[in-house]
């Protein structure tokens, strides 16, 4: 295209970018559609689209006497902090969204948060459990529990249910989520009278864990805790079993994606992990969501999908309460959320962006995620 053509188009582009929201509620979604946890990005996108289409099929949202159509702008952050920052900038400055859902991993949610905070755009991260993401921020919320709680739940399961006296941990030191939950587990397990037999690390994208696992094997722990993401855990379990480690294996909510079993197969059987919800739940609202999701996308929604759906509903409700699709009003309405009933539990923000929610322990049996027990804070 020639230079003159570009110059002629420029005002049009600017006009398009500056056009006010009009009759729609425009919400940005930052999801890892490609990269290491792309399977989770896909379920995030699925859940967001489901929430959007549902709201629009019902005629739209009633906000301050007007009926607004919902529009989600879904962008790929590749599960990289630097790309997440770019996505947040684009959503805020170019798409002019009034709120952002995402990103999912803690390291990415944490990279986007300062941008949302300084722009005064409310951010709801569905799945980021690291406490630092919301700390000291007014515009950042999450739909999930935080790792200090989750780490405690797993430590109690190890010491109580499994009667483990010694534990070993292998975690990704380059990722906020993994590191945070590993440290909480270490402290909580010690408080319960257990001893740490090994605390080993690796770096994101490593695939050979045999050196660390051999070291762990020599320490003979009663239980092995792998608070890592679903795309790496099966390899770690496989390598551990091949090296002759027979101890039961535990994990966190980073495990919850169908890829875990697809990649690991039978080797994952018998392992347990903490999670935000179980598809076995008897809650009718959650069952309705699971049925709709299954009918449209052909798979059981993982926790990230359920939490994304909850985050969307939270924002819809906040828009209704606020009576206008304006970021600051949305933020205030969100902060005042109390007793919101979602797929993954009840959400109340008591002055911070962290809801107080329960967790469940899930056991893997014949490749299926089976509800084991529920733990309330």
């Amino acid at each position, binding site marked *: 295209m020639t230079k003159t053509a570009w110059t002629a188009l420029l005002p049009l582009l600017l006009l398009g970018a500056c056009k006010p929201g009009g009759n729609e509620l425009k919400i940005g979604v930052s999801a890892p559609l490609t990269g290491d946890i*792309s399977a989770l990005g896909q379920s995030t996108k699925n859940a967001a689209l489901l929430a959007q289409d549902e709201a629009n099929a019902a005629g739209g949202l009633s906000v301050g006497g007007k009926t607004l159509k919902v529009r989600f702008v879904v962008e790929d952050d590749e599960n990289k902090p630097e790309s997440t920052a770019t996505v947040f900038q684009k959503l805020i400055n170019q798409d002019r969204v009034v709120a952002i859902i995402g990103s999912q991993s803690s390291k990415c949610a944490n990279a986007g948060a300062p941008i949302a905070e300084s722009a005064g755009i409310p951010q709801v991260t569905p799945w980021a459990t690291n406490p630092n993401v919301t700390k000291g921020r007014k515009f950042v919320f999450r739909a999930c529990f935080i790792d200090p709680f989750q780490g405690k739940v797993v430590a109690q399961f190890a010491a109580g249910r499994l009667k483990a006296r010694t534990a070993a941990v292998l975690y990704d030191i380059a990722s906020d989520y993994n590191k945070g939950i590993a440290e909480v587990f270490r402290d909580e397990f010690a408080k319960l009278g257990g001893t740490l037999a090994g605390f080993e690390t690796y770096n994101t994208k490593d695939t050979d864990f045999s050196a660390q696992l051999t070291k762990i094997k020599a320490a003979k722990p009663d239980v092995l805790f792998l608070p890592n993401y679903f*795309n790496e855990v099966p390899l770690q379990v496989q390598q551990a079993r091949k090296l*002759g480690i027979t101890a039961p294996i535990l994990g966190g909510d980073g495990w919850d994606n169908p890829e875990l079993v697809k990649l690991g197969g039978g080797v994952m059987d018998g392992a347990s992990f903490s999670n935000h919800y179980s598809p076995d739940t008897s809650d009718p609202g959650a069952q309705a969501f699971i049925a709709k999701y299954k009918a449209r996308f052909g798979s059981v929604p993982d926790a990230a999908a359920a939490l994304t759906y909850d985050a969307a509903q939270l924002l819809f409700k906040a828009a209704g309460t606020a009576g206008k699709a304006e970021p600051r009003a949305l933020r205030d309405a969100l902060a005042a959320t109390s007793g919101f009933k979602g797929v993954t539990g009840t959400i109340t923000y008591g002055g911070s962006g962290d809801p107080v929610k329960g967790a469940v322990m899930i056991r893997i049996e014949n490749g299926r995620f089976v509800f084991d027990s529920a733990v309330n804070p």
Partner: protein
Amino acid sequence: METVVQQLLNAAQLGAVYALIALGYSMVYGVIRLINFAHGDIFMVGGFAGLLLALRFTWMPLWALMPLAMLLTALLGVAIERVAYRRLRQAQRMSLVITALGVGIFLENLVRLGVGPETRQIPSRMPTTPVAWLQDALGVSVTWDKLLIIFVSLALMALLWAVVHRTLLGTAMRAVADDKDVVPLMGVNLNRVIAVTFAIGSALAAAGGVFFGQAYSLDPYMGIDLGWKAFIAAVIGGIGSIEGAVLGSFLLAGVEVLTVAYLSSNLKNGIAFGLLILLLLIWPSGLLGRPASKKV
């Protein structure tokens, strides 16, 4: 004691895979003085070729599947050289390096679009039962696939050594490495020698990819990090030297594994690469590399 043996076997498996990749870097550098930055991605494609073959022909045993994946990847290597590198052979060095990086990015995205971005694993065609006699004699848990990977890799390297040092083709390759301007004057087909070098290097990388996909995992971007590691191993050994690439690979894997085993897993890369920098300070052209001397 059994932990030491176990760790050495861990290092041997990792080193074997590094070596299969590092050889391609070294051989290509030897003949056309190009650091082929697409080589890590050729390794990745080799792994995915193995995956697709394994999924398509579920009956195919490993001894048929691996040569087939190696053949396909060798053809890819030759095609890349023909299409992207040959015309640039006389251009300035930087153009070739940039092209190689571009080819790498192209391959990553091609696989991402064609196969998908998820982490995959080749359904294992190797016995994963523990080796009983090692268990009994030393108390070491080693599965058969680990031993197979180590020995087949070593056998491939021995085969390569024989080709380079005992055949006419190998002589031609070494001659091209020595002086690629004079060799055509002796009636050697330069293009063919270079094509064969790319074919062999890519085939070895594919063997590494197929092993890697079974022992560890595959994803479209795996070639970047592993490619760097293998490249560094080749430099440590002395780039251009076949024995050097193998030595450097086992050395790098050994230092990595032993750092984790006896120091700390936090320091793995720091100590491994710090040591390697020290090594290069003492031997600037690598352990077995020849110092570059320019004839005036």
